[in-house]
């Protein structure tokens, strides 16, 4: 019967394992051991495991720092002998080890989802670079379009660098998380994902702006923009999770949606105090678009004046509140 000694890392994840055939296993820093661990807190000959009927008997070979048993052991009543069962965990020096039989069951293989495969293909410079250049151009372009004083690069360079740095940081965060949880950085994939969702949001936001301008209704944008932001944020988060974690699709969607909901609840409750507050200033829909984006037909002055009765009726109702 072979013994598997698994070295555990951060979060109990396996960093590698030793397989030893035979009735006993020695563990220590010395090269004569079956399992050689490079840790200054481990003695040259630290411990020995001997196969018994019930598991492995642990013998501390008078090590300097001793052996700490963390999980799955039993102590035989008659003596101070410690018996480790399949799956036991011990701490030697600063290393955590798991002791298994070679017949120890493993989890069934996870299905590799198409989404993960497809998203993985984004991890290319040829995809990231155009996306990056487009979003940079859009960033600069929108700043330029909304500037009505003389354009000076020095006034805008920090705004531009700042927004790019935020995207970079977020991409780095996901990439590092992926490095830890999946041993896969996918940095460019994460970066490209964030950039493309940003581009889609900018485009749709603009379209909604044009639509609400033509409908003369701020309500359209007020409802559609948060919905759009919610939808895109959920999609993006779910994709980030897919690339950076081992979550199952269901877990991923629930986590993404849950996080977005949390953000919404927090932002709504932050604004709750302002609702229903009296304002001495009129809150009117002031959006303007360039003439070529104005499609809707204008009504006559007479029709407009006649339609004002509704405003007075609304003002009367508001004063009664």
């Amino acid at each position, binding site marked *: 019967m072979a013994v598997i000694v698994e070295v555990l890392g951060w979060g109990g994840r396996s960093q590698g394992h030793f397989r030893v055939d035979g009735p006993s296993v020695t563990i220590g820093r010395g090269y004569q051991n079956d399992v050689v661990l490079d840790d200054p807190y481990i003695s040259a000959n630290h411990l020995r495991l001997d196969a018994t009927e019930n598991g492995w008997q642990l013998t501390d070979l008078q090590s300097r720092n001793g052996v700490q048993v963390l999980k799955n052991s039993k102590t035989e009543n008659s003596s101070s002998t410690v018996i480790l069962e399949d799956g036991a965990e011990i701490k030697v020096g600063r290393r955590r080890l798991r002791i298994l039989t070679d017949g120890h069951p493993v989890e069934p293989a996870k299905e590799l989802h198409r989404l993960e495969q497809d998203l993985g293909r984004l991890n290319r410079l040829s995809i990231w670079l155009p996306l990056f250049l487009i979003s940079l151009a859009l960033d600069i372009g929108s700043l*330029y*379009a*909304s*500037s*009505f*004083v*003389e354009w000076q690069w020095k006034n805008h360079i920090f705004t531009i660098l700042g927004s790019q740095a935020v995207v970079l940081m977020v991409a780095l965060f996901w990439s590092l998380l992926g490095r830890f949880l999946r041993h896969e950085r996918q940095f460019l994939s994460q970066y490209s994902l964030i950039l493309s969702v940003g581009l889609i949001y900018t485009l749709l936001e603009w379209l909604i702006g044009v639509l609400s301008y033509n409908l*003369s209704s701020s309500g359209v944008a007020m409802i559609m923009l948060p919905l759009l932001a919610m939808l895109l944020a959920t999609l993006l988060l779910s994709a980030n999770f897919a690339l950076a974690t081992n979550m199952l699709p269901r877990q991923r969607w629930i986590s993404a949606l849950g996080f977005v909901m949390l953000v919404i609840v927090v932002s709504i409750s932050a604004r709750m105090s302002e609702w229903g507050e*009296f*304002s*001495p*200033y*009129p*809150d*009117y*829909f*002031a*959006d*303007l*678009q*360039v*003439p*070529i984006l*104005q499609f*809707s*037909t*204008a*009504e*006559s*002055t007479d029709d*407009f*004046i006649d*339609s*004002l*009765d*509704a*405003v*007075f009726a*609304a*003002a*009367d109702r*508001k*004063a*009664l*509140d």
Partner: protein
Amino acid sequence: MSIYNETGLSLCARGFSRAVFILTFCLAWPLAVAAQSDSARALFADNKAGILQIRIIDLTSGSKSAIGSGFVVSDSGLIATNYHVVQMAAEKPDQYRIEYLSAEGELNHLKLVDVDVINDLALVKADSEMTPELPLAVAEPPIGMPVYALGNPLDLGLTVVPGTYNGVNQTSYHPRVHFTGSLNPGMSGGPTLNQAGEVVGVNVSTAGNQISFLVPVAALQQLITEYRVRGHEVDDIRQRIAQQLLADQDKKFTRLLALDWPTLALGEAVVANELKPFIKCWGGSNSASTKAQFLSADRTCRSEDNIYLNAKFNSGVIEHQFFWLQADQLNTVQFYAYYERLFSDFAPGNKGTEKDLGDYQCDNQFVRAESDLQSNRGRTTKVVFCARAYKEYPELYDIVFLQGTVDDSQAAFVSHFTLAGVSQKNAKAYARKFMGVSKWQ
């Protein structure tokens, strides 16, 4: 955007700061020395018994929370003062009481019997007879005549302030006498007398630096007559104010709307010019700025009529504002970015709080600014119309109107007005008239 801010002259005891006291004292001292004339002395001696300090007493604390002045207009005990002096007691009779303190130190209760909120006047009545009654002048004094304002500035006791009568101000719809002399907080509601000792006006407000205003005595005469004809006090002050506001705006807007509004060019547009005596205008542009990337010229007009309703609520003001914009060095998108910012920045001309007003309700539409009524063609404009209702005074609204052209990529014309305390019918008629006069063809 008035050149000066009129300040009510009632003195709030809580706001009586040492700094104000010292400043006013220093400024007033040389004047008092210079103006020691015989007539001032005589006027003071003859009339001091008829001029009273009016105090608003907070019933909970039992002490005065505001003071003003008043004077006897009938020996039956009728006393005139400003509405803004007694406003707190008019609004909350359960919380405040009105009292007078005579020059002899006599203290007694007063009852509010009538108000003229448009002219900021109030009549209060004592239980007992009061003398001497101050006679009201029948004829308006000539401009340049020395006159004397009396009252209790800053709770310092009865004071005479000499000054000059400068006639009825021609630039406000509600007539106000321009008095060149220093009125100070606490003198509100006191009389201004001519050399014969007749009342020529009631002290009401100051714009600082010796520019002060009086309510013409004719308005007081009218209020006394109305009170005498009725024969008893007004039962419901709030309803009386509501009727006065409604009647005043109706009269004002009927006159305004019947006028043929003069016009003036602003850029390629035509805008409404000054309307005497309703509104005065100023103008400006950014053409002096060397850094400007676009051209902006504006004209701003404002009425000087402010109806005091309470310390945080006034009404009656009319504002017009026009902007002519040209893209100049900006491209269309940049030009509209600036234009949008300008368009989003319009506010009402009067102040008010939740206690008195509902929130603004707004509508916006694309409206064709027809070049004439028959034509179906004209510029496409975006129009915003907002109204808020008065809670205490039904059928009255504040209006914010805004119209801007949206069909030219290199230029734009914005026209805007605000109205305060106007009926639905008059507001709609005003919008129609305004849109007909101010336009860019």
